[in-house]
């Protein structure tokens, strides 16, 4: 499988993704699944700007991603599939059930969310969505950078922000 990481990160394409994960995993492409970004040339150019030329960036809606996913998985280059929130990743898993692992990479503070880890804040609804995702046989771990220890979802949900 060429897709090394299915990541939820509300900063979308940024330093931690491009450099933090991109360099050690020798990432050849990033697929950003976001309906708004997929509809805007300006947004796409914004995220393309910071990515090195040897790395391809693909933009797709959730529905389009399901069509493209077999091609991304067959790509000999390692890749990252990225969504900006839990709801989008849950929709993606629903239409692409072959996704078996999800990485919580950055879900930051917002009103109604409780801190679980330094880089993971969750609302009650988001916790339910993650549990539902885990119940559908998806392994969910939190890990902001490759050198950090992956933290299983149950531990994330019990954590008070350490």
């Amino acid at each position, binding site marked *: 499988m060429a897709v090394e990481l299915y990541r939820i990160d509300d*900063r*979308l*394409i*940024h330093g931690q*993704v491009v*450099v933090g994960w991109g360099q050690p995993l020798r990432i050849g492409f990033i697929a950003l699944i976001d309906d708004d970004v997929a509809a805007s040339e300006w947004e796409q150019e914004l995220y393309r*700007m910071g990515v090195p030329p040897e790395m391809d960036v693909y933009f797709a809606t959730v529905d389009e991603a399901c069509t493209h996913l077999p091609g991304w998985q067959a790509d000999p280059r390692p890749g990252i599939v990225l969504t900006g929130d839990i709801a989008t990743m849950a929709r993606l898993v629903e239409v692409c059930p072959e996704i078996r692992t999800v990485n919580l990479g950055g879900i*930051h*503070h*917002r009103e109604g969310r409780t801190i679980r880890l330094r880089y993971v804040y969750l609302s009650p609804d988001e916790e339910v969505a993650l549990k539902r995702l885990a119940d559908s046989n998806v392994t969910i771990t939190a890990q902001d950078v490759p050198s950090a220890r992956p933290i299983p979802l149950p531990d994330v949900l019990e954590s008070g922000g350490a």
Partner: protein
Amino acid sequence: MSSDAKALVAGHAAFAEGLVSAVSQITGQSEQFVTMTNTAMSADEIEERMRAVVREHGIHVIFTDLPAGSCTIAARRILRDDADVTLVTGVNLAALLHFMSHGEITSHEAAVSAAERAKGSVLVVGVPGGR
């Protein structure tokens, strides 16, 4: 932070604070710079914070650390709405020191000049096996 600040330095962790502290150590001044970090903030929070700093301090130049960084993304969103702001990404100490001494030229010209200085200050010295 000074109300006389002309540039914002923004980046990961303590990058901006560290860079400006180095400016201060070298020149004894750093009032021209305001700093911000992206630590523990969402993309929306970074943009909101950056817009507030730009507004509050009348910033015309934003320096960021990494082209792909979330501060750079936020700055580009600000530039879309404000043609008077210039972004320089990939900033280093040489660039900030040069920017401080820009004299009477415009902020945009000073930013362009600082970017050139930044590029010129990255040098490779020595070759394998060389003396």
